[in-house]
């Protein structure tokens, strides 16, 4: 008790000081060799009160230092705050990982479940079940890479998936019954390599299936993503397009972040194209064992690299850099 009283008394006095001089006096009065603390402690049993003594001393000291800083803005001694710091090791998360984490976060807010499906898959899941039978001209749009392995008697050739859409029927098979809100995010491959395409790239695929899913639901989801990813003023728009696995199909644009949709050198029209979307084709639902008369759905699939390139201020002009081990590039992230 005596130590506690002393502490309270000291803290009260310290808080009322108005100058450094006063503080210095209090320091001597309490913590000096013949100060009150030592005086009180002398009369106590050292073994039982040792810890409390230390605590009291520390509390008074830190109160003094803190008050000193409040009064003068600096600690009592001369100190150079402009001297450079000692950096901790600075590592770098890859921008693709950064983007993936953000995309996952955005869609999780809407109740989407992230999944991962095979990168090496059967033709069935990549094309056939998506209403693209063998030799269909629509397959020309995908520069497919084939694996030198025997074909499956039912599921066809082994390919590197050209899009995350192979997850659509796989997800329907996994959950068996709607509701489905899937975010499939992973590596895809196409036979292309140039400043805006890499043979290996990443896509994210959204799939929503339930009763009464409509085009406005797709628009709502796109708008939500646009605001989260690009910024609060961003709007989305859908235009007619064609994919075999959606009906109707859309091309999705967002307002250009460089000009806020006014139209500039970069975007021309005020809009930038991000990727495809559509209402799930009844044949795809059937392929996944879901009754298209009872359920409907929407899907979209876009490049992670594509949305990363369009991230305001980032302006990566050559996405091949992402898959190089160029430190000058990687250290910027």
């Amino acid at each position, binding site marked *: 008790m005596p130590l506690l009283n002393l502490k309270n008394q000291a803290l009260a006095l310290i808080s009322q000081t108005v100058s450094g001089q006063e503080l210095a006096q209090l320091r001597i009065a309490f913590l000096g060799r013949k100060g009150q603390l030592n005086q009180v402690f002398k009369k106590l049993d050292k073994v039982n009160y040792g810890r409390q003594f230390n605590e009291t001393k520390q509390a008074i000291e830190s109160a003094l230092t803190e008050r000193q800083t409040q009064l003068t803005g600096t600690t009592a001694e001369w100190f150079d705050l402009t001297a450079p710091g000692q950096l901790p090791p600075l*590592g*770098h*998360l*890859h921008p693709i*990982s950064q983007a993936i984490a953000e995309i*996952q976060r955005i869609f999780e807010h809407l*109740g989407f*479940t992230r*999944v*991962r499906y*095979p*990168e*090496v898959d*059967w033709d069935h899941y990549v094309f056939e079940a998506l209403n693209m039978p063998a*030799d269909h*001209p*629509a397959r020309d*749009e995908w520069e497919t*890479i*084939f*694996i*030198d*392995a*025997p074909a499956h008697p039912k599921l066809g050739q*082994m390919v590197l998936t050209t899009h995350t859409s192979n997850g659509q029927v796989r997800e329907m098979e*996994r*959950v068996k019954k709607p*509701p489905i*809100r899937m975010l499939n995010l992973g*590596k895809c*491959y196409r*036979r292309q390599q140039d400043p805006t395409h890499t*043979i290996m790239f990443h896509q994210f695929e959204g799939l*929503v299936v*339930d*009763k*009464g899913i*409509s*085009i*406005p*639901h797709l*628009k*709502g*989801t*796109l708008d939500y993503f646009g605001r989260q990813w690009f910024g609060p003023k961003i709007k*989305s*728009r859908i*235009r*007619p397009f*064609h994919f075999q696995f959606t*009906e*109707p199909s859309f091309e999705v644009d967002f307002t250009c972040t460089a000009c806020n949709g006014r139209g500039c050198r970069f975007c021309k029209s005020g809009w930038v194209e991000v990727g495809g979307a559509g*209402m799930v*084709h*009844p044949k795809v639902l059937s392929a996944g064992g879901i009754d298209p008369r009872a359920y409907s759905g929407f899907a979209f699939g876009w490049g992670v690299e594509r949305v990363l390139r369009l991230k305001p201020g980032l302006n990566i002009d050559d996405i091949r850099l*992402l*898959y190089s081990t160029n*430190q000058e590039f*990687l*250290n910027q992230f």
Partner: protein
Amino acid sequence: MNISIPHSWLKEFLTTDASPQKIAECLSFCGPSVEKLTKASDDWIYEIEVTTNRVDMMSVLGICREAAAILPQFGYKAKLKTSSTLLEVDQNRSFPLKVKVDHQLCPRFTAVVISNVTIKLSPLKIKDRLEKSGIRAINNVVDISNYLMRAYGQPVHTFDFDKIKSAIILRLSRKGESLTTLDSKTFTLPGGDIVIEDAGKRLIDLCGIMGGLNSAVDNQTKNVLLFVQTYSPTHIRRTSMILGQRSEAAQIFEKQPDPEQVRPVLLAGIQLFKEWAGGAQSSKIINLYPHPYKPKTVSAPLQLIKERLGVEISQPEVDKILKSLGFINGQVPSWRAKDINIPEDIVEEVARIYGYHKLPSQLMATPIPTNYPETDFYLEQQIKQWLAGWGLTEIYTNSLVSENIPGQLKIKNALSADWQYLRNSLAPSHTQNFPAFEIANIYLPRAGKLPEERLQLIISGFKDFAKLKGIVDALFAKFHLPVEAKLTTTNAVIDLEPIMKKAKIYPQYQPLSIFPPIIEDLTFTIPLKTFIGPVIGAIKQIDKIITKVELTKTYEQNFTFTITYQSQTKQLSALMIAPTRKKIVQKLKTKFKTDLVGELD
């Protein structure tokens, strides 16, 4: 597929008060996407992307049909012009060639002979239109074929009639037959290609792809055989893909253009020959069409349309939209027959013309799924964050590699020698000389099944082994698991999925000890080439009051260990730990032949 169309040509089929800019904008909103609109002297050129399902739009007429339906939705006047001149068709003549057609390959076959043509340049206006459409003007006869194809989206061929020997037999080619096309390329045919043979047993046409050189129109041509057909799309596509001949004609034929348009195009051709080449019809029109198009009906219940669009729309509004697109009482127009099959196709037509931009935007109010897969994406991301936080750089390297290591899948159609195999380890890809890490799949082949895709973590590029080991130890400390990594002097490879399953993100909490520890340093002289890991392990095993053993200093063969003794049940004293300390010294002596530096009390 992209096509270019000048505004001046558009106006031949369409009356409208909309400007080219507005036409481009409205079409993009509701129909074909106009990628570019460029000024060309007093004209404009639309560059239009046509999707594979809409071969009917690969033409000026097709685009105008769309415009006539779309523009009024935006308040513009737009009307399709119908052809005014009705040609008089003379069917009393004979046809001078023997014709034999396999209708499996050619569902509709039409032809007519045009005599006394004069080969010359086309009228300036026509040359200008073709060139603005990206088609080179050559001479009037060649230009007529190209003009018809672009105007109506129906490929047309012209033969020099006098070069054909008395018969045309349309059949499948046999493997190894050869043919030289108009562009002087000679092909040895794969077999199963649609070709035409004449009575001289010569192949004179690689149908739907390109005509033969031996029957081509040249500057001396007097009489022309005008030829308009539809072909089996799969045959055309197969031949075109195998031979790598992706002519515009082939790309149209493989998508099945409207068979009902064949005869009108032939008639338009006769008319153009008359106007531009002075030629006249000199045979009857052959028109072989054993299974004519039967109109089909596809409709969508109003309820389905309302549900998908999420707006109140009335049946009259729906009917008006469909009528503007050529649907009559649910009957699909012939040019859309291939593309419109299910109620959802009707939903699309209504929705796009109504305007996607007019539909509301709202989030789903349906239940959120709770059926999650097992993968722990959070931990995966957390591992990346830890490693980056400890100073490593994350890299992404290609799953496709050049090196042929046993047990890798091979690519059948590699883009380059750098990307021929799917890797079965990340290590060979990590050749960089700075500390880095990567989490990616490796691919392990399995007979008759897809490969196993196994998630691997590699930590690589270290020059200082202790630092590498430190990162690995720190990571497993975070997992609260013993280290399970394949180490080399420069990298560590971790099979991530089983580790993530076992990892304890919340370890079992140990009550804080109320008794302070005793910490002391012991230095041993250890013989050369002694593994230090087992030494530390041996010390730890001696007594459970040893809670921590750290190697804190090494000098030559002297190793200093900082040892923490602590008990949950009693206050330790120097006296109490003396026997444990003695055991340490003895055990290390017998097991590792070490000597304590200094003396025990």
